[in-house]
């Protein structure tokens, strides 16, 4: 490996480790959260270095972006932290065992790499690509070879929304979270762009990095930005329409997974001639649902208006 790249990696990873430490231990909670967000962005760069552009996209939008906004919004709702001063010595004493653990862990990891070559499933994936119905190997794994994982993962997300809603009404979205006067106009200008990029990423997912998750994240980013700029969830959208939009991704996924059994196939076995179409249907439904679910996670509770309608 060229020395320059090595140096770059070393610096990048060093910064990540320092920022991670800051993100957990910075004296001021706000600084901790901002460090954590920067840590997320650098992690996205690390994914690029590891030749994982799909993960980099998801990390930048979800891991750093949306998580960061969520953290900041939460921070605004919390009282300042009460810190109890701790004696210096006790601190080092608690650090020591963990340091030992880290070193031991490192040693183990090195031992593992030295015992390589790891075969991996790469060859099996590439051998099966002609029947996958998509061109991008990662999308093929996510929506075909290991689609059952992805279905359960969307269930996890919906579950998070339901869990948050069961705690009470929305608490995070207040109109004046960001004091930026030009934001509403800017958002109005940008919102169509967000929608356009969402569909671009959905379409692109079949060929290269992209697909349902980054697309959903982008859609959510647009919606969250609109909420931060003071937009409210329209009254007629809360309640039933929003709930169906939230559930649509999982339901479509389930219908397709079980529906292919009507062709006499196994669970989730897309008939080869329809694979592309079915995957596209699942991807679009999942992408849109993910966008709405992420926005709902940002809202942090059931939108206030929907309650009266249910009675």
């Amino acid at each position: 490996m060229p020395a320059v790249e090595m140096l770059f990696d070393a610096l990048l990873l060093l910064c990540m480790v320092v920022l991670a430490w800051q993100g957990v231990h910075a004296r001021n909670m706000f600084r901790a959260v901002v460090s954590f967000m920067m840590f997320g962005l650098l992690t996205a760069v690390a994914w690029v270095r590891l030749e994982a552009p799909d993960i980099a996209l998801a990390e930048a939008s979800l891991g750093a972006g949306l998580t960061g906004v969520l953290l900041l919004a939460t921070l605004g709702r919390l009282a300042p932290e009460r810190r109890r001063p701790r004696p210096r010595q006790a601190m080092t004493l608690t650090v020591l065992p963990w340091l030992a653990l880290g070193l031991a862990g490192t040693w183990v990891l090195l031992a593992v790499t030295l015992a390589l070559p790891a075969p991996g499933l790469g060859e099996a994936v590439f051998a099966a690509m002609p029947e996958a119905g998509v061109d991008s190997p990662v999308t093929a794994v996510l929506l075909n070879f290991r689609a059952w994982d992805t279905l359960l993962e969307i269930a996890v997300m919906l579950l998070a929304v339901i869990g948050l809603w069961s705690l009470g009404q929305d608490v995070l979205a207040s109109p004046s979270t960001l004091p930026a006067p030009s934001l509403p106009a800017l958002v109005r200008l940008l919102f169509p762009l967000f929608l356009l990029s969402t569909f671009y990423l959905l379409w692109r997912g079949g060929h290269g990095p992209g697909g349902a998750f980054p697309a959903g994240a982008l859609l959510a980013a647009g919606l969250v930005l609109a909420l931060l700029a003071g937009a409210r969830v329209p009254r007629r959208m809360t309640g039933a329409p929003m709930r169906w939009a939230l559930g649509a991704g999982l339901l479509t996924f389930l219908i397709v997974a079980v529906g292919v059994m009507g062709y006499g196939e196994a669970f989730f076995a897309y008939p080869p001639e329809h694979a592309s179409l079915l995957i596209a249907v699942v991807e679009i439904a999942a992408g849109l649902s993910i966008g709405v679910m992420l926005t709902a996670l940002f809202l942090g509770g059931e939108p206030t208006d929907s309650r009266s309608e249910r009675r």
Partner: protein
Amino acid sequence: MSLPPGTLFLLAAALLFAIGAHGLVTCRHLLRKVLALNVTTTGVFLLLVTLGRSGTGVDPVPHAMVLTGIVVALSTTAVALGLIVRLERRQP
């Protein structure tokens, strides 16, 4: 000196895991615990992809696993933050 490829990343992954695990145990504030947990998770993700890479060519399966993992991590973080806010409001 030539290190095997990915050694630096493995080292960083182990350090991140240790920082996160340590923070989760020692920090008192719940928000810090959540941040620490996320750092730990990132360490494991780095490990997963780095190990998947050191074979022959790029293996897409760990990529898919990490993508799934990122979404799961975000969902659980959102629930944890919701709980923290509610707990704060019910402070006696």
